């Protein structure tokens, strides 16, 4: 197990480096110039050349990459071009908000999707399960920006119950959480329901019934655990994406997370900050995937090797 964990960590580091390289090159190839944005239209050629040199943007891309990777290995991701502050501190100051939003979203998803999914599977073919399926299809089809704006209109403008944006109080968390959670609840609910139905048909469930185990214990002890295996995989991927920052929802609700920082930095071509956000996103996905793999081995003994 320890050698497995170590191997996974080494792979995670290599994957992160590959992702850093890829995003670094893509950013440099993309059109737009941070110096032009920074200095504005009135700057002279000499001023522009000086600024380029100062930020190391005059070197060939591969040299810039080497310098960047060298510094990144000491957790120095450079300075923001626009604000002059350390990228690391800038990104990390936004991360707690993203973390909070991701955690509250996943919590709501787990609390709602799993029990309802199991319920609809057990009540397969009954009106309650048809209604849930229809509702989840609607939730799945709603785009986040639309749900978000409609909720702001209803709960902030008309009813004045909740703040329309920002992160001043706990109330600000509610609408972004619901907006993010709705489609995820729909996906996970359906997955949980399908998997539960599949497991209920498995021969070992028939055997458990033949041994006279009551329905409730069969569900608790055998069905849910087996049905959870694919849900954990999908949930892990979703959590990874949430931790990378929910770009649209953070923008709609002016939530000061990594997603919002990313969008702002792309707008002003603040390369180091964009790069920093992307590294954090990549890293979140890689780390959650690794944790999912560990969780897998806990749930399903067939994944534990010798």
């Amino acid at each position, binding site marked *: 197990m320890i050698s497995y964990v170590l191997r996974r960590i080494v792979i995670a580091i290599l994957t992160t480096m590959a992702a850093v390289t890829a995003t670094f090159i893509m950013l440099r190839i993309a059109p737009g110039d941070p110096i032009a944005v920074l200095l504005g239209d009135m700057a002279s050629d000499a001023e522009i050349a000086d600024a380029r040199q100062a930020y190391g943007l005059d070197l060939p891309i591969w040299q810039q990459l080497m310098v960047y990777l060298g510094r990144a290995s000491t957790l120095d991701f450079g300075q923001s071009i626009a604000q002059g502050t350390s990228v690391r501190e800038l990104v990390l100051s936004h991360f707690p908000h993203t973390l909070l939003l991701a955690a509250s979203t996943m919590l709501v998803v787990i609390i709602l999707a799993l029990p309802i999914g199991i319920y609809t599977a057990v009540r397969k073919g009954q009106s309650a399960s048809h209604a849930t399926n229809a509702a989840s299809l609607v939730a799945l089809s709603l785009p986040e920006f639309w749900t978000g704006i409609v909720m702001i209109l209803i709960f902030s403008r008309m009813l004045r119950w909740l703040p329309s944006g920002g992160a001043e109080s706990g109330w600000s968390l509610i609408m972004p959480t619901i907006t993010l959670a709705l489609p995820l609840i729909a996906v996970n609910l359906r997955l949980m329901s399908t998997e539960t139905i599949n497991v209920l048909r498995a*021969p070992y469930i028939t055997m458990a*019934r033949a041994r*006279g185990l009551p329905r409730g214990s069969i569900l608790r002890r055998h069905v849910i655990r087996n049905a959870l295996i694919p849900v954990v995989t999908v949930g892990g991927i979703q959590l990874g994406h949430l931790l990378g920052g929910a770009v649209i929802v953070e923008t709609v609700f002016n939530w000061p997370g990594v997603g919002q920082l990313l969008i702002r930095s792309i707008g002003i071509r603040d390369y180091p900050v964009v790069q920093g956000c992307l590294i954090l996103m990549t890293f979140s996905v890689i780390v959650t995937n690794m944790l999912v793999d560990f969780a897998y081995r806990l749930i399903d003994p067939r994944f534990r090797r010798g």
Partner: protein
Amino acid sequence: MTLAEPMVARPITREPAIAVAGLSITARDDAGSSLPLVKDISFTCNAGEVTALIGESGSGKSLTATALLGLLDPDVYDVRSHALSVAGYPAAPHDPESLAPIRGRKVGYIVQDPGAALDPTMKVGDQLAELFMIHRGMSHSDARREVIRLLNLVRIPNATARADDYPHQFSGGMKQRVIIAGAVALSPEVLIADEPTTALDVTVQAEILTLIDDLRNEYAMGVLLITHDLGVVYQVADRVLVMYAGRIVEKGEVEAICSTPAHPYTAGLLVSVPDLSRTGAVSAAIPGSPPRPGLDRGCPFAPRCFQAQSVCATDLPVLQQSGHTMAACHFPISDGVRHG
């Protein structure tokens, strides 16, 4: 042990292990059409005996077994009977769940494919311990002691350590032993074994059969053994039920069925068994294949029968005494004569 009890006394003093009168099973599909698969069958299995239910694939053997446990999906199958009792417990007509109280306690069940019959995420010891904890209200440690005893009983080597292994760490034969252990855990009066050796290696088959037979002796269980393997029948059965196209076409004691079958189908099954003493001899197969379910006029075996006559195509024969067995045939084979 229970062996001391005189064998002859059992059928008289005890309730039959299984008594079925007029059992019919019909499958419904989404379009609303229904397909009769098991048609009005009646039989009893005596306590302490092995009753073999034999027939080709699709003859309704496994459906019958599953119905006896009330495990058929009521959304798909319509199960009706005049009377059905298992281990003396009468089932409510049309309500499969009415058999739930006896499952595990009074009737044990073994399936054909042990591969998928155990929860892959739970230690086998815990899967067996559940039975004692739920049915007998035992503590985990007491249940575990019972589990080790059971695993030893079904001759799993190194039982204490194996109890902590997961199903994927067991071979097919060992898994089947675990399933048998689960089936006999609470000393049931009846054991229903649905092709228990079909998915196993030939060398393991004999061991599993011997194990089932020994357990039958030890617990004085009535066993309903579903099989298409006549070798298995010779080895362990006391009585035989021959099923064809959803009906019982012949029943009797194993010696009578095997030496003087009255139904041409039974006779055909017997001669189709490969005879290893005659090297090079090719066994005779019954020509044709079983009828598709649904068509129901005359004797279902008539199209494949070497001695069918015009009445066979129009009238359904009923089970009646014929020589040493009961056979549903208009022209039963007479005593001692074996046709091929």
